């Protein structure tokens, strides 16, 4: 009788432990998924801005792609907050926990990026390369302002 309880108890424990473990793993997987998603988004932003920089430097011709690149940055900037669910930090992420303790500041920095990216779309549509170059710098600074506050310097793991 006693043995049965023991076995059952142990079985329960294993079951509960297993479920808990799988939940944790699932959470970690989810977190990593969102981290990968936002890192990809940031890389796309970087590539889009680089493409615009090429136009500014005269290494590529101005065209519809210039506007498209600016629009990509704008639409991405609107997605950023949703890609930072609470405490979504993994070993591969350089996000700082301050994002969630200072969520208002984080959101405000993102809305500044949205405003500046919208202006970039405007000047990109107008086609004045000089103005595009100037606004590109402003957008770059908006990116940097958030990184500086909310991203860790790169360290070797």
């Amino acid at each position, binding site marked *: 009788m006693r043995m049965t309880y023991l076995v059952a108890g142990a079985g329960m424990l294993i079951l509960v432990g297993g479920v808990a473990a799988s939940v944790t793993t699932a959470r970690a997987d989810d977190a990593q998924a969102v981290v990968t998603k936002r890192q990809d988004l940031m890389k796309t932003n*970087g590539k889009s801005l680089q493409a615009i*920089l090429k136009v500014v430097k005269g290494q590529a011709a101005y065209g519809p792609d210039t506007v498209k690149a600016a629009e990509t940055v704008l639409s991405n900037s609107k997605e950023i907050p949703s890609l930072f669910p609470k405490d979504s930090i993994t070993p591969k992420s350089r996000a700082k926990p301050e994002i969630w303790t200072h969520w208002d500041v984080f959101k405000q920095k993102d809305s500044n990026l949205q405003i500046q990216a919208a202006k970039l779309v405007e000047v990109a549509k107008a086609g004045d390369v000089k103005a595009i170059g100037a606004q590109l710098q402003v957008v*770059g600074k908006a990116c940097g302002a958030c*990184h*500086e506050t909310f991203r860790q310097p*790169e360290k*070797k*793991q």
Partner: protein
Amino acid sequence: MPRADAAGPAGALLSRGRRGARGAVPAGFLFLFWLLLLWPPGTGWAAAPAAGDTASGPSAIAISRGRYLVEAGGCAACHTDAKDHGQPFAGGRALKTPFGTFYTPNITPDRATGIGGWSDAQFLRALKQGIAPDGSYYYPAFPYPSFTRIRAADALDIKAYLFSLPPVRHENRPHDLRFPFSLRPLLVFWRLLYFHPGDFHPDPARSAAWNRGAYLVIALGHCGECHTPRTFLGGMKPALFLAGTNKGPEGEIVPNLTPDRGTGLGDWGQDDIVTLLKTGMKPDFDNVQGAMTEVIRGGLGQLDDSDLAAIATYLHALPPIRHKVGH
């Protein structure tokens, strides 16, 4: 004086390093160097030539030149405890290292707690020899292995600027170091291995821009202090000068600045380097972080475009070193 000083700065660093690595320093040379280091302060070779304090004090031009040099040298970054809202140049910033925590000293002209009582000769000796007015050695957390190459005239302009600042009364905090690094006299051995005093020698075969860039990078900017990997004793590995390290300050990854394609700045244009030094923005629109942000904000970003271009010229002309840092 070490023989290698006659050669060009980078070459000199390299040749010294190989010799040091083999450990084949002749015993006689060691003994001589030892003697020189033990020479009583203010009497021997170690006493820097005094440029003489003038009664009228330094000119406004010297002060403004000094201000620019202080920006190029990034003095404020380490000598200000920004985290605890300390006064500029009043020291107290903690520098965590594998050897313990260093607390930077007050370099405002306060007589009691700063450097207000220092003579020109004492200032030069600190900067160029790493020796305090009381004759003790500074820990090389103070980058005098780089600052030794600063021209005496520039060093005195720096002093003129620092002495024009408001004095701040702020006691220096003693370093908190692990044994045996807490034993300051042991630095004599470290200096034998890793400290190579001597001026910067321009290379007449190179352009003016290259020479200016070399001076800014090697001496004033002391870029190598963070961008060069170190030995377990904390000496720079000269064969990997500016080749980056995974063990930078606060554990940060510090990139390879040599023009190697793949691991260094081989794909960067000169204008890319200038933009980074000015704004912190990399060509891929990622921005630098950590210590380099302070370096840029603390002064590098304010330098003239011609000086930033000179730095880029020098970096581009470095021998490429294949040395991967980061992930």
